[in-house]
C-alpha cells in the first residue's frame, strides 16, 4: 500500500514537472526571465566592480549574479504557476483532488528551477563575451553538485513565497519587494563582509549564502572544507519544505474561507 502511494506521489511529481516544462518551453515570460534578465544583471554587477576598480571580484559577481538569476527566475516563475492556475480556472479543480497542492507545486517549481539553471550559463556567457573575463572552474564536478543542491533548495524556499499567491492574486507586489533582501542578505549582490554584523544570523538562515560559498570554492578552490556548507543547505532545505507544507495547509484553508480561488 505504502509502495503504491509512493509510486503515485512520484508519478504526480514527475507529471507536474513535465507539464511545467511543456509550458516553460513555449512561454515568452519564462524565456525573458531566464535568458534576458541574467544578461542585464551580469552587466550591472560586473560593471560595478570594474568601475570600483575590483575586477578580481569578477568570479564572485558571476556566481552571485547567476544565483540571483536562479532565485529570481524560480521565484517569479513559481508565482506565475499559481497565476496560471488561477487564469486557467484549474486552481480550485486541483485543490478538489486528493493530492496536496504542495506536491503539485513542488513538481512544477522544480521544473522552473531546473530551467533557471540556464540563467547561470547566461551569466558566465555574458561575463566571457561582454567583459572578456578569464573564467574557469577548477572543480566542475563540485560546481555541478553544488548547483544541483542549491537549485533544489531554492525551489523549497520559493515555495514559501509562492504560497502567498494562493491567498491573493495581489501577492506579486509583496514578493517583488521581499525578493531583494534574500539576495542582499545571501551576499549574492554585495560581499557579506560589508554587511553589518547583526545581519549575519539572517544570512545563515538563507541557503543561497551557503550555496554561493560552495560554488565559489568549486570555481576557485581555497582549500576550505565545504562539508558544513552542504549540511547547512540540506538541513535548511528540509526546514523550508516543512514550513512550506504547514504554510500551504494554512493558506489553503484561508483561501477556501475567503473564496478567492477563482479570482484572477
Amino acid at each position, binding site marked *: 500500500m505504502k509502495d503504491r502511494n509512493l509510486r503515485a506521489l512520484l508519478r504526480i511529481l514527475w507529471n507536474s514537472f513535465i507539464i511545467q516544462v511543456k509550458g516553460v518551453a513555449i512561454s515568452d515570460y519564462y524565456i525573458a526571465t531566464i535568458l534576458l534578465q541574467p544578461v542585464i544583471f551580469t552587466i550591472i554587477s560586473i560593471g560595478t566592480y570594474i568601475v570600483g576598480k575590483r575586477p578580481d571580484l569578477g568570479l564572485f559577481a558571476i556566481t552571485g549574479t547567476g544565483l540571483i538569476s536562479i532565485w529570481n527566475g524560480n521565484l517569479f516563475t513559481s508565482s506565475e504557476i499559481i497565476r496560471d492556475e488561477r487564469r486557467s*480556472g484549474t486552481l*480550485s*479543480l486541483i485543490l*478538489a483532488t*486528493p*493530492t496536496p497542492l504542495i506536491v503539485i507545486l513542488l513538481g512544477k517549481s522544480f521544473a522552473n528551477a531546473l530551467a533557471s539553471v540556464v540563467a547561470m550559463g547566461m551569466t558566465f556567457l555574458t561575463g566571457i563575451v561582454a567583459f572578456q573575463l578569464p573564467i574557469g572552474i577548477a572543480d566542475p564536478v563540485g560546481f555541478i553538485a553544488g548547483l544541483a543542491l542549491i537549485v533544489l533548495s531554492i525551489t523549497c524556499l520559493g515555495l514559501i513565497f509562492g504560497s502567498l499567491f494562493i491567498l491573493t492574486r495581489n501577492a506579486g507586489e509583496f514578493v517583488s519587494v521581499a525578493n531583494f533582501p534574500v539576495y542582499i542578505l545571501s551576499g549574492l549582490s554585495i560581499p557579506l563582509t560589508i554587511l553589518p554584523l547583526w545581519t549575519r544570523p539572517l544570512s545563515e538562515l538563507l541557503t543561497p549564502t551557503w550555496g554561493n560559498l560552495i560554488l565559489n570554492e568549486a570555481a576557485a578552490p581555497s582549500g576550505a572544507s565545504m562539508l558544513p556548507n552542504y549540511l547547512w543547505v540540506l538541513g535548511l532545505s528540509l526546514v523550508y519544505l516543512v514550513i512550506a507544507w504547514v504554510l500551504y495547509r494554512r493558506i489553503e484553508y484561508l483561501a477556501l474561507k475567503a473564496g478567492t480561488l477563482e479570482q484572477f
Partner: protein
Amino acid sequence: MSIICTENLHRVYQTTTGVIRRKRKDIVALDGVDLAIEQGELFGLLGPNGAGKTTVTRILATVLLPTSGTAQIFGLDVVKDARRIRPRIGLVFGGERGLYWRLSGRDNLQYFADLYKVDPAIAKKRIPELLELVGLADRANERIEGYSRGMKQRLHIARVLIHDPELLFLDEPTIGLDPLAARELREVIRGLHQSGKTILLTSHYMFEVDSLCNRVSVLNKGKILVTDTPSALKQAVANLEVVEIECFGIPEALVARLRAHPAVESVNVEQLDQSQLVQIQAPAGAELVQAFLGILEGVQVRKVVTRQPTLEDAYIKLVGKESKQA
C-alpha cells in the same frame, strides 16, 4: 439517507468599496439553504444570475467554506472531512476554463488521473473509453487551445469521470454552447444518470432542467423558494395562461401598470434584439388580451401570442413573487 444534506447553510462574501476611504461590505450569497438529495437523483438547482447556485456547488465540492450552517456528503462533513470526500466526487464548472490549454486532451485526462491517484492500468483503459464517450477520440492528441467551446465542455465531462466518482456537480455545463453541442452534452448527462451517478446540475435553462432532472430547487437571493418535481412545479401554474406581447420601446411606467392589473400574476420583460417580449401570467380563460393592449396604447406592438405555461413560467412566477415581496 440523503447523499447530500445541508442545513441552514450561509455564505457571506466580503468585499471593499471606495479607493481612499475603503469600506468593507458584506454580500450574502446564501441565506439558510436546506437541501436533501437522494442517491441516484439528477437534481436541478435553478435560479437567476447571482442566486447562489455556484456558491452552493462550490461549498458541496469542498472548494469553498460556508460561513455557517452544515453540509454533509455521504454523511461526511464538507469542512472537516474534505479529504475523504474529494476522491468520491467530481466537479465541472461551466465555460472554457478549468483545463490546461497547452496540453492535449489526452494529457489533460492523464494528469487528472494522476492527481486522483487512479491506478495507471485503469487510467490507460479508461482514458480512451472516456474520449470515445464524449466524441473526442480523433482529436485526443491535439492541444486543447485549438478545441471549440463544445469540445472543451465535453472534455470537462471526460475529466470529471476519470476517477469514476459517485457524485457529480455540474455547474452550468451547457452555458455558451450552440444548440447542437448543448443537446449532445445533455445526452451525455442523461447517460451518466442512467448509469447510476448522482448528479447535482445547476442551470438557468428551464427546458434543460425540465428534460433532465427528477427534482428541482429554485434558488433566489440565496434562499430556496421551492423544491419539487418539474411537473409539480408546472402544476402550480397550470391554471394560468401566458400572454406574450412583442413590442418596441415599452416604457417602465406601462410595465408597472401591467403589473398592477388585479388579474395579473406576474410580468416579465425580456429584451430581444430590437424589441421587447412582455410575458404576462394571468388566469386561463380570462380573455385579458384586449385589456393589456389597452394599457399598451401608443406602443408599437408586433405580435401577440397566448400559450400554455412552461416550467420557465413557474420559475418566473416564483422568482417574480419573491422580488415583489422584497
